[in-house]
């Protein structure tokens, strides 16, 4: 028994000696996370494109006995030679170089059974690391459909591992796989590399003998392991460097040179040595164990769909149409449930007013909590629609096609199709978008993508756009197709995209150094969305949005209510008489001057007046200014802030909805409206461009490893936002739109 493994049988894990650590490894998009979810009951993100998972995820498998099993899901790998950050994370867990954790005790290699050859390439590499392995053959449903048969017993014998066929998507074979995991740990076998007996492998191993000898002297135990490592050292200078640092470097260098020369004599470029050796063995294995019974290709249907979706003319047209339809429908369709929620919240405010005794507490509840939190909750349907559409794009495989189509354009600004997923996910939220940039191999590309991702309008900006557009731009249809509010919304998104493109160009020319990039990406077959998981994704986004409203926004609304209500003006204690709507409206407009002075001398008003001179050139009054400050906690907070301020200001006891309030608001001195379409536009432009999100700055710090970039990002985005809003408002005023 391999002594290295014996030590591992009782791992020094913090969860005690009876916790086994099982890692899931496999090609990108092979269904690892689907399998992880099926085994643990968790609901992590899946999607039909390579590079969905970009970090290490862990969960527990419920086991019948006392032993605990920790399951670790990892980013996808094509080989153990990492090229991008997500791949590096996976390889480090596997090779035990991740500082914080011991090596896993068992590996489940997930192979896409419709893509067996490429899956086995990674499998053989992992096997050579000496781990006990279970091979999970996933997507068995497609194997049958495509008309071939895999001789599983034959394959298991040949590869010398237990094989469990599964359909992760439908949770088929999960019990069997669990059983294999449970029984595996009790009968830990000897570590073995894959021994290949085809002639090419034998020839190569002959050449490598001296190097293998050296490696065995320096810690590698098995024959197969030494051969595999020898090939890696010969193929990859980086690996050779690592070994050299362990001493005896000159001798190693000499051996490596010697092997390389011998390879060249046989006509094998040394960098290809490992690949050729493994594939020649794999081809032989597959020829013996995979039987094509009927005609049929995994790619047939997809090719037909692609003949439309990536068609020379229709492809780009359809792409634009899909994206435009999504944004338009977010606006149009979501308005129905939004009106319903708005009505519900107004009703709630009225109920509170009717049943609570008058006083500060009632004001706090009605003007602070219900008005503030309610104003944000109204936008929940839009969040739901946006995440629903994005989930469908991700699940069908269309995102990879967008990357395929857009690569040409992105190449012009120095990026590649690889940036499509990070940038498109940023329409939901910049944080997962920025993390998705881990899949970009080229460092320069990756940094630029991270720096421009926050220009994509995230879901937190959507409420601000909707509020402004709904209040100040009329519902006009042009020719029955184009809808003015929809078009304005779309142009806000486009503004972000255009600024991102320009910034990327500037960054890659003058700021970020590095080699230019290339583009290699697998195009997965189209799949039907897994509706259950689409639902989970939408539900999670909605839950987060509501939870946020219940925490941050609630807290800020309460604080703001105090800041806006105190100190009370001593003389003015007369409350308006409660009455019908008309009467309220009258008294409100009559009382404007008086009440305004009450709120203007409150703490919030004082603060607002301090910053008013700075934002006045952008067309903003002090209330918007307070909203801009609080929106740095989260963008949508500006809405709850303004709702609270207006409700405190509107001294009568009914809650007013924000849209009506901002339409009616006038400057106390001049009587001119505070908001005009131009002010609304200026405010929206500010929100498109400014980086008002602490979490984004924190994640940029984490992903780039220094404060330099987040600080630079904050400053340039802020300056850009200020200048652009300034230009919009001043130029607009000159043209007479004020």
């Amino acid at each position, binding site marked *: 028994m391999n002594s290295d493994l014996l030590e591992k049988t009782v791992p020094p894990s913090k969860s005690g000696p009876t916790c086994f650590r099982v890692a899931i490894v496999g090609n990108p998009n092979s269904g690892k996370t689907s399998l992880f979810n099926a085994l643990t009951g968790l609901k992590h993100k899946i999607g039909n494109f390579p590079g969905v998972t970009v970090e290490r995820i862990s969960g527990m498998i419920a086991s019948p006995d006392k032993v605990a099993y920790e399951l670790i899901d990892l980013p996808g790998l*094509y*080989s153990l*030679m990492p*090229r991008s950050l997500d791949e590096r994370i996976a390889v480090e867990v596997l090779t035990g170089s991740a500082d914080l954790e011991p090596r896993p005790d068992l590996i489940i290699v997930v192979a896409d059974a*419709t*893509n067996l*050859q*490429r899956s086995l*390439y990674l499998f053989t590499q992992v096997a050579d690391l000496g781990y006990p392995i279970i091979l999970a053959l996933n997507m068995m449903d497609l194997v049958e459909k495509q008309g071939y048969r895999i001789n599983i017993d034959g394959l298991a014998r040949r590869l010398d591992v237990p094989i469990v066929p599964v359909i992760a998507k439908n949770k088929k074979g999960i019990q069997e796989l669990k059983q294999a995991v449970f029984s595996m740990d009790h009968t830990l076998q000897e570590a073995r590399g894959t021994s290949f007996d085809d002639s090419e492998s034998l020839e190569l191993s002959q050449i490598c003998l001296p190097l293998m000898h050296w490696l065995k002297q320096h810690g590698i135990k098995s024959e197969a392991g030494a051969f595999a490592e020898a090939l890696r050292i010969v193929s990859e200078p980086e690996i050779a460097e690592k070994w050299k640092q362990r001493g005896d470097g000159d001798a190693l260098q000499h051996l490596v040179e010697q092997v390389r020369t011998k390879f060249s004599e046989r*006509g094998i*470029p040394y*960098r*290809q040595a490992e*690949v*050729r050796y493994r*594939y020649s063995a794999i081809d032989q294995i597959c020829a013996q164990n995979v039987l094509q019974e009927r005609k049929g*290709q*995994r*790619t047939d249907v*997809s*090719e037909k769909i*692609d003949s439309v979706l*990536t*068609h*020379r*003319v229709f*492809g*780009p047209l359809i792409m634009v149409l899909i994206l435009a339809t999504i944004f338009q429908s977010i606006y149009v369709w979501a308005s129905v449930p939004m009106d319903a929620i708005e009505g519900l919240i107004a009703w709630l405010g009225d109920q509170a007013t009717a049943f609570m005794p008058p006083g500060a507490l009632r004001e706090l509840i009605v003007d602070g909590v219900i008005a503030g939190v309610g104003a944000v909750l109204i936008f929940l349907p839009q969040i739901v629609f946006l995440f629903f559409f994005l989930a469908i794009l991700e699940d069908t495989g269309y995102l990879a096609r967008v*990357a*395929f*189509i857009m*690569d*040409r*354009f992105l*190449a012009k600004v120095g990026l*590649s*199709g690889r940036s499509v997923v990070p940038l498109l996910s940023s329409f939901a939220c910049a944080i997962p978008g920025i993390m998705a940039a881990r899949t970009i*191999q080229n460092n320069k590309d990756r940094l630029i993508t991270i720096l421009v991702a926050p220009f994509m309008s995230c879901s937190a900006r959507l409420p601000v756009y909707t509020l402004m557009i709904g209040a100040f731009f009329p519902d006009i249809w042009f020719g029955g197709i184009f809808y003015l509010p929809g078009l304005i919304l779309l142009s806000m998104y486009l503004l972000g995209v255009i600024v991102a493109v320009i910034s990327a160009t500037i960054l890659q020319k003058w700021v970020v150094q590095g080699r230019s990039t*290339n*583009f*290699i*990406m*697998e*195009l*997965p*077959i189209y799949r039907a969305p897994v509706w259950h998981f689409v639902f989970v994704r939408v539900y999670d986004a909605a839950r987060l949005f509501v939870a946020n409203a219940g925490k941050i926004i609630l807290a800020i609304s309460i604080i703001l209510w105090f800041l806006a209500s105190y100190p009370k003006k001593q003389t003015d204690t007369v409350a308006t008489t409660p009455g019908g709507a008309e009467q309220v409206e009258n008294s409100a407009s009559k009382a404007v001057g008086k009440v305004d002075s009450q709120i203007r001398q409150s703490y919030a008003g004082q603060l607002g007046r301090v910053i008013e001179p700075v934002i006045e050139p952008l067309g903003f009054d002090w209330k918007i200014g307070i909203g801009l400050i609080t929106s740095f906690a989260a963008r949508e907070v500006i809405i709850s802030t303004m709702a609270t301020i207006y409700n405190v200001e509107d001294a009568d006891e009914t809650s007013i909805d924000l849209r009506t309030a901002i339409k009616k608001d006038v400057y106390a001195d001049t009587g001119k409206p505070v908001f005009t379409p131009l002010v609304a536009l200026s405010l929206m432009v500010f929100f498109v461009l400014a980086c008002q999100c602490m979490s984004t700055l924190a994640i940029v710090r984490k992903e780039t490893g220094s404060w330099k970039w987040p600080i630079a990002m904050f400053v340039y985005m802020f300056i850009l936002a200020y200048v652009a809003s300034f230009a919009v408002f001043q130029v607009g005023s000159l043209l007479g739109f004020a």
Partner: protein
Amino acid sequence: MSTFKPQDAQSARAVAELTLDLMRPGEEAVISGYHNDVEDEALRLLEMGLIIGSVVRFIKKAPFGDPIQIRIRGFDLSLRRNLARSIIATPIR
């Protein structure tokens, strides 16, 4: 520039060779070598199975001409033309 051709393929090589970027939609070819001893990026292609002797099928160009889509070992891959240019193949008729 070094062009690698394996011994066994030498005799069968009567047909004109071309590089991947020059193939036509629907055309199939056997990979026979690489220009400019494989670079880092192309090594990833090797790992994905684009090795000498593998059959590639050219599917199409992207709508704006670049990248291209090829099929290898049963899955589809897109790569830029400048990379495809360094892979030599012999068309199958």
